[in-house]
């Protein structure tokens, strides 16, 4: 495998792990992403670096938005009230779908050999 496909495949792997963490194997995929991040976060190749850093940072944000925030709503809200459930479920579905969509955009860019920066995560390039 020559250099160009290898750098693209690392970028694709990072974004794919971000999506697998959201969709199929939460936690496990994050651990794999963590390993990838530790190996390639300072890669000389800009494409590999930006995708591994971005995917890792976005996974941390996703974890916070999908675990911590709903946890706080559940802990502080009265779960015997339908309004709390309505808000909780709507929040989770919209947030999860939004994060998956961003992952799809990032993966499409990685497949095309282009960089992608998640919204508000520009500092982690």
């Amino acid at each position, binding site marked *: 495998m020559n250099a160009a496909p290898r750098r693209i495949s690392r970028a694709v792997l990072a974004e794919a792990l971000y999506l697998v963490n959201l969709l199929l194997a939460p936690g496990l995929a994050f651990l794999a992403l963590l390993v990838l991040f530790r190996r390639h976060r300072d890669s000389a190749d800009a494409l590999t670096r930006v995708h591994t850093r971005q995917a890792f940072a976005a996974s941390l944000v996703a974890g916070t938005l999908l675990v911590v925030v709903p946890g706080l709503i559940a802990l502080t809200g009265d779960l015997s009230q*339908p309004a709390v459930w309505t808000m909780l479920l709507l929040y989770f*579905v*919209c947030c999860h*779908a939004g994060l998956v969509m961003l992952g799809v955009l990032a993966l*499409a*860019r990685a*497949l*095309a050999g282009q960089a992608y920066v998640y919204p508000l995560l520009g500092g982690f390039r």
Partner: protein
Amino acid sequence: MKYQSQAVAKPYFIAAIGLFLGQILFGLIMGLQYVVGDYLFPAIPFNVARMVHTNLLIVWLLFGFMGAAYYLIPEESERELYSPKLALAMFWIFLVAGAATILGYLLVPYATLAEMTGNDILATMGREFLEQPLPTKVGIVIVALAMLFNLSMTVLKGRKTAINLVMLLGLWGLAIFFLFSFYNPANLVKDKFYWWWVVHLWVEGVWELIMGAMLAFVLIKVTGVDREVIEKWLYIIIAMALISGLIGTGHHYYWIGTPEYWQWWGSVFSAMEPIPFFMMTLFAFNMVNRRRREHPNQAAVLWALGTGVMAFLGAGVWGFLHTLAPVNFYTHGSQITAAHGHMAFYGAYAMVVLTMISYTMPILRGREANSRKAQVMEMWAFWLMTIAMVFITLFLTAAGILQIWLQRIAAEPMGFMAAQDQVALFYWMREITGLVFFTGLTLYIVSFFVKGEEARAS
């Protein structure tokens, strides 16, 4: 356009847009009837408005698919359509039959319509989405067979590509599965079992093939990406659509009296149904990212990308939301289903037809792309309709969650109508958002009449 006979697509598209407008108007009427129960009663009762709303949707999408096929297949086959006259004759037959059916719904009591149209000879009416009188159903079969003959002959004599073969396979599937609408067994379980062979195997089966072919066709044209790359994506997408969608029919068999194993089969396979939609989104964005040219029709590119996103959200995410049997036990037949239905139909099928119209109509009118001004208006229409549909879905989802709680979870469950009163606020918000959708559609129609200098590739 490359072939003169592609022009037969134009009347199909015009009819599709006209019927789409009618569908939205009846949607607004129904939306208001949800909160003002006697609005337009007895002139247009709720059940009639609902029937017109859903039947117009099906008919305008069929017009759109047919128009798309008559445009796409000659171009892919690299030859003129086998018989443009037959295509035009079928257009008029389908339009007259469709209009007469809708007028029948509106002007004649349904039971009388059934008597008048021979339902006692072969009873096929009275089932959701398949309410059409017998002569209309026979007409649909005749129109579909004539279209398939016409298109198949064109492909047989011309070039075979993945796109025209997938399109043709989808259209054949559409016609074949519609034949189950004539089978109406007295046993209610069997009736529902085979009813889904039309409804589910259309929208979560063969229509996905039609959608994939249309999207692939437009993406080749607007991005200039190699056909081989796009066709490989198409093969994988349609394989996943069929692998997941066929046995995924089982998610309709949880509670209708079929064996319990359907809860496993339905859950497992329908959990995979978002995969082809996920791939379509990835496919669309990947192709646009790898584009080799800046196509002057940026509105068509926007519709293509929007189709991917909205189909994944509406059909994929909102479908998965209530597809697993333990979840569906609570959500079945609630406003969650309505939320999913609205976004899935708009995202997957309405938008792909609009993508095709957006790409082809300027060419059918003698230019590669509309003026910049017309395209900006069309893009405004895109955003208004799409954002409105997102909010319609969110309000219906909120209504659904609350409805489920009040009717099925609360310690003292409410009756259906009492729960409906409690969720009225969401219905009002849905109606207001529906008006925004209508504004977007009006703008879309107006954009066809905006003149100006033809946009050029940058």
